[in-house]
């Protein structure tokens, strides 16, 4: 589609200098790696100049850093552009795009809850989805968070089906208070 090509050329030219990589994964899907210091500027360009709609944002733990991916839909062009930025561990930080548009507010709070990346200048950085008694500084979707449960859960299911339910919360470590890492 000619129009999409034209817009992509403009976008690549506009983001040159801000991004370290402009990857056309396929005709409809583009990934742009933006260092954290340029993240806000790049988001601003996509949102205000190219009229991108922030479909959602997602986060990833890649062992030495936390990535945040902002997925913009350019609906008229049938195109999704993903801006990928990152913050280095142990205290990852990126600039919040919720300053630009309120639609990013909740998803950034969720990413902060689960992955522990701090969004600078976020208008309302309170906890969103974790329980009120969840210990501060513990991020459940980090790679170093201990996974557990498979065997004990299966044992419980068998016990239930055979008619003798056994207490299992303690064995699973899912009782409140357990699993808190310091």
């Amino acid at each position: 589609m000619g129009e999409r090509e034209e817009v992509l050329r403009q976008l690549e030219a506009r983001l040159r200098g801000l991004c370290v990589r402009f990857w056309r994964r396929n005709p409809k899907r583009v990934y742009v790696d933006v260092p954290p210091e340029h993240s806000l500027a790049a988001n601003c360009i996509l949102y205000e100049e190219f009229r991108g709609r922030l479909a959602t944002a997602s986060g990833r733990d890649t062992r030495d850093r936390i990535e945040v991916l902002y997925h913009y839909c350019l609906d008229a062009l049938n195109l999704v552009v993903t801006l990928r930025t990152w913050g280095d561990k142990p205290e990852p930080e990126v600039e919040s795009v919720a300053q630009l548009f309120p639609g990013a507010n909740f998803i950034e709070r969720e990413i902060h809850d689960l992955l522990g990346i701090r969004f600078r200048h976020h208008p309302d950085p309170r906890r969103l989805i974790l329980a009120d008694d969840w210990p501060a500084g513990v991020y459940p979707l980090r790679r170093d968070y201990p996974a557990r449960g498979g065997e004990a859960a299966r044992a419980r299911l068998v016990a239930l089906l055979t008619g003798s339910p056994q207490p299992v919360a303690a064995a699973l470590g899912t009782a409140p208070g357990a699993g808190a890492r310091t």
Partner: protein
Amino acid sequence: MGLRLWGLKKSPWVYHVNVGACNNCDIEVVNCLAPQFDVERFGMVLVATPRHADALLVTGGCTRQARPRLQEVYRQAAKPCLVLCIGSCACSMGIFAGSYHMAGPVDEVIREVDPQAIVAYVPGCPPRPQAIISGAVKALQSL
């Protein structure tokens, strides 16, 4: 059979509690109440407060945030009170077992408050309305 038990079995009033379900079990519970299955013909009425309830229909594996709330709802319900765990998650935490935000299956959370609680299990993802009705009938028969 005492008068209270007779009344309970004749017309159990139910209160619906979602403690972390994906909403699918809730849809089936509502389906029970809607005209197609119409559990009101068995005297089961959905009530708006646990203080009026004879049975709690609990859906979802109990999350950490919901745990104290479920226990408070159980404390407020008039005794004797049936607890119906609707769906795989409520029965055994289902695929969420071992997940970071789970406080335990519903029966254990309830038994922390009342070890003698009467708990019935209706597994399924989600259980069909027939299964829910059958579970409720079996639980009442066991009283």
